[in-house]
């Protein structure tokens, strides 16, 4: 079925607005999957190309889900699976951690290393949901809608992710 209303992705302003709203979230999602910024952006752009090519067949209300599904498919087809290790922000934004003694700083460094390693060991499904919640600050409902999952499924993945992280870092 073709779209006939004015909110049509084949119209450039609509397409661009859609792009601007979702490109960051989509790129982050790709990053949580592949762990590489350049590759994540490439996958995301490729998915937007596909949306443009199929603009007449995609309903605007479903376009977000289509975008994330496409990224997932492109990722499965093209990317060599590797360990997803993300870096930390350089600037520590928490003021209360600015003047800590060296021992604490060392501990913190160790903890960060353990945590990013543990996150890399999560399953892809757990990691993407966990990081969409933590880094992107998305609510479960939003994640569920984006990935075409039930809220229950998102909650389950969050629990599993947390339990796994807790288990991998026993002495916090």
């Amino acid at each position, binding site marked *: 079925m073709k779209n006939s209303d004015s909110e049509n992705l084949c119209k450039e302003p609509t397409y661009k607005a859609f792009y601007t709203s979702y*490109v960051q979230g989509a790129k982050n999602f790709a990053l949580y999957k592949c762990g590489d*910024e350049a590759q994540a952006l490439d996958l995301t752009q490729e998915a*937007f190309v596909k949306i443009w*090519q199929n603009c007449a067949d995609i309903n605007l209300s479903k376009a977000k889900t289509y975008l994330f599904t496409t990224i997932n498919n492109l990722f499965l*087809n093209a990317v060599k699976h590797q360990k997803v290790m993300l870096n930390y*922000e350089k600037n520590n934004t928490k003021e209360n951690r600015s003047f800590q003694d060296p021992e604490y700083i060392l501990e913190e460094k160790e903890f960060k290393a353990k945590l990013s390693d543990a996150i890399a060991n999560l399953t892809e499904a757990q990691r993407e949901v966990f990081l969409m919640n933590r880094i992107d600050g998305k609510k479960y409902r939003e994640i569920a809608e984006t990935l075409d999952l039930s809220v229950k499924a998102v909650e389950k993945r969050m629990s599993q992710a947390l339990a796994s992280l807790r288990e991998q*870092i026993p002495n*916090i």
Partner: protein
Amino acid sequence: MKNEKLILKWLNGDLTPEELEAFKKTEDYKAYAKIADFSKELKSELLDTEQSYQDLEKRLQSVKKEPKVIKPNFGWVRYAAAAVVAVLISTWFFLGSDGIDTKTGFGEIAQTQLPDDSEVILNAGSSLTINEKNWDTGNRKVNLNGEAFFKVTKGKKFTVHTSAGDVQVLGTQFNVKERDSYFEVHCYEGRVSVTRATDSLILEPGERYRFLNGTGEKITGLTDAKPAWLDKESLFDAVPLELVFEEMQRQFDIEIEASAVDTRQLYSGGFSNTDLQLALQSVCIPLNLSYEIKDAVVKISPDAP
């Protein structure tokens, strides 16, 4: 996990102040808070959406307009998922008037993209035409003169038409090569159907169909993962010398004068597509021939006894 419901609500920012106070008193709170806080600090680069949109527009143009000859990027060859076929033959039999036309000169390789996202790498001295108008009707057909490696996106029937025969696939990758009196289809992955005149056969991975001097034969049990020319080499298996020299002319943009030797004799082996001296030695030495390079003309003669 203890307090699972509470923890989930907490991460979703849904706890009431009272619930939060109570949760902070639980023994696990500190550990979870540390995990939750530090994982927030993991970095994801912020995009300049205006800039990245401009980049996207460039990409969209290359998809919609004529495929341009770009620097070959063989990255996707490694991810070959479906089928690879090689075909060879060469009469200038078709030049679509209103189709997309991609051509390579001697010594060139070009990569191009079809309207459905399928990708093609053309070997030297080849041309590919498609009639874009027909693509919407689900009729994916390209005309090939020369040699090419295809990565076809999944979809309806995809046909490579050559003067020697047709090659058909359903969403796959393959390489097609055609020359005068020679036609070769090599299936690397997936399944490919080859039709020549009234005959047709199916090729499975590791199988090659070859039509030479009026007879066709099927060879099985081949193990190559992709055509040698993608690694800048030309390989031959019991092929008349004449065709080997033709390929060399195509790769190096030279003229080969070999009237003094029997070019019907068969040659098995290969040559580098990047080093002419080396290439000539690889072919001439085993066949007891000598060569002489003068400007862009190479004269081949039998070794003096």
